[in-house]
């Protein structure tokens, strides 16, 4: 079950990966993947493609200075968010860090409201108040989008606590990066989740780097294995293979929903772009490494190959999915461009529930100060 963490790719690992890109994923036989219809598979593939094209389009918008602040792209990690979120039922919830666009698309948020948020527009998912790192869609059980490394993990644990308190059969997936696992709040959350058997799955998206620091230079031991110290189940899976992500996560989601058991799942993945678009990405990892991943493990390529082999995708279909993803991202950019900015009058809205609901306000006195 637990497999070793991804070290720097070795020649044999690469050969194997190239190999596995050709042959069928062993995880395809898992019941959760067996039950996928052709249409389901196309939908998964389409969502991954939409993330890729959205991120590429947002990068161009950033370069055109349409977007401020940080922009952390999800390119290369698409199978993780799409695989995990494709398993969500009515009472399942998601929370993640600042690399949050992929999860937002995976839970079904529209590209328009996301691109508009990046542009800082009033039509954005957070009305232009959150920005790239702070997307939210509670109506889709998506609780953000959090900028402080590891800070969202206690919140995700709280979502699970609420589910259990209310007697709902659901699970929370709390995503974090490989760099977050060393935060104290994460360990406190692990302990609480296990102590109180909360239905939360801590998902470590291990892309090998926290900014410019490789896993080897920041973390002692296996990342997933730390769960064992808290008496939690854990596993590690291949984030380049959406079937593996789904098969692994499904098992733990069932345990969470049915038996209220927490778990840690480390998903090995890789990001092709810099940490954020401001990262020139030329000091801490060899270009060849990025190229290797691109060539042999790209999650969209891997899945595309598999679906071609399975007879689900044809070249024409791939082309049309790609074209409509590009068109949708382009339309989102146009929507964002055409949308109004919030006004200075909006600055002090959405601070207090009470201030936004004056007729229901119970408190008195000043809430804001000059």
């Amino acid at each position: 079950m637990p497999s070793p963490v991804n070290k720097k790719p070795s020649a044999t690992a690469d050969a194997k990966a190239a190999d596995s890109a050709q042959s069928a994923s062993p995880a395809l036989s898992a019941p959760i993947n067996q039950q996928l219809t052709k249409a389901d598979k196309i939908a998964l593939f389409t969502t991954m493609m939409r993330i890729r094209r959205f991120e590429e389009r947002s990068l161009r918008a950033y370069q055109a200075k349409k977007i401020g602040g940080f922009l952390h792209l999800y390119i290369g990690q698409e199978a993780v968010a799409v695989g995990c979120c494709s398993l969500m039922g009515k009472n399942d919830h998601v929370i993640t860090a600042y690399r949050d666009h992929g999860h937002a698309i995976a839970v079904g948020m529209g590209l328009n409201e996301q691109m508009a948020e990046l542009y800082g527009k009033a039509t954005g998912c957070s009305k232009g108040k959150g920005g790239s790192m702070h997307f939210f869609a509670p109506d889709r059980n998506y609780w953000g989008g959090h900028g402080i490394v590891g800070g969202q993990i206690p919140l995700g644990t709280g979502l699970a606590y609420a589910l259990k308190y209310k007697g709902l059969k659901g699970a929370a997936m709390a995503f974090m990066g490989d760099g977050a696992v060393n935060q104290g709040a994460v360990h406190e959350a692990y302990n609480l989740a296990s102590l109180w058997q909360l239905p939360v799955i801590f998902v470590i998206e291990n892309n090998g780097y926290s900014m410019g620091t490789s896993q080897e230079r920041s973390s002692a031991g296996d990342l997933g294995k730390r769960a064992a110290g808290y008496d939690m189940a854990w596993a590690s899976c291949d984030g380049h293979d959406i079937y593996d992500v789904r098969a692994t996560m499904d098992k733990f989601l069932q345990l969470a929903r049915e038996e209220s058991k927490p778990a840690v799942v480390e998903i090995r993945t890789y990001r092709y772009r810099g940490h954020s678009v401001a990262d020139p990405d030329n000091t801490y990892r060899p270009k060849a490494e990025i190229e290797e991943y691109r060539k042999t493990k790209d999650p969209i390529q891997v899945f595309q190959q598999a679906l071609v082999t399975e007879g689900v995708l044809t070249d024409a279909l791939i082309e049309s999915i790609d074209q409509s993803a590009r068109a949708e991202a382009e339309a989102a950019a146009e929507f964002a461009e055409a949308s109004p900015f919030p006004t200075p009058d909006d600055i002090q809205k959405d601070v207090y529930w009470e201030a936004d609901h004056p007729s229901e306000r119970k408190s008195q006195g000043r809430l804001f100060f000059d």
Partner: protein
Amino acid sequence: MPLITYREAIRHALAEELERDKNVVVLGEEVAQFHGAYKVTEGLLEKFGPKRIVDTPISEAGFIGMGVGASMLGIRPVMELMFWSFYSVAFDQILNNAANVRYMSGGLINCPIVIRGPANGGTNVGATHSHTPENVLANHPGVKVVVPSTPYDAKGLLKSAIRDNDPVFFLENTILYGDKGEVPTDEYLIPLGLADVKREGTDLTIVTYGRCVLHSLAAAEQLQKEHNISVEVVDLRSIRPLDIDTVLASVAKTHRVLIVEEQKPFSSVGSQLAFMIQKESFDELDGPIHRLTTVDAPAIYSPPVEIEQLPNPQRVIKAALEALA
């Protein structure tokens, strides 16, 4: 009206709200089996059971953050910090998550959490256990900060805090837990953000809150008797929202102001008050605004000296006479 302690008043507020709303849950270190480090929650476990009254590990960042997350999904957690001083290890959860999540989500997410516990010096527990973070907390738009001085206020304000849809930080005082006061048996609520004139007077307005209200009332008594000075004592009760109107009305009556607070002076709650009073009532003032704070150093342990480091009735009298000089 029955006389009950500040501690009992808080307990009654908790019990009534637990009874009223099944989404209210009390969590914190030692709140259940141990009955609370300061016995505030005594008897609640027996009455409401372990699902509603939950002992947490010593893990403030973890459990406060968990409470914030649960509140996003509709639970109304009332979290006890054994001392507010320990907020520092949960700072990120309190001030990044609870305070900001509504804003960053464009108003889509609410965080109806209450965090309560004592925040005071004066018990000889040294600098780590004597913080008064109301200024730090109130500096963050999105949060509410309440500091009750009497059993009556503590009960009515806590009930409002628990029903509030915004995060409310409720700062109690270990020295007041045993103080008795009249509290009606019938249900009542006190709105947050409503100051209370605890004593009327004509010569000097003392603006204060928390335990300093009691020091100020004791000083006012003596100032009346020994100096024939009539002092009005305004108890803010709530720092944010802030009832500045009641303060300004009093200033318009007395024209002299002394702020008394158990804060360190630099950027204290009093600094904000002084700014607002001079800005909005400059013409009413017959002299500069004075302020009495904790002496500016980490909390000293030495018991007799700590009394002198904090505001106390004698220091209030001295400061009042200076303000009127």
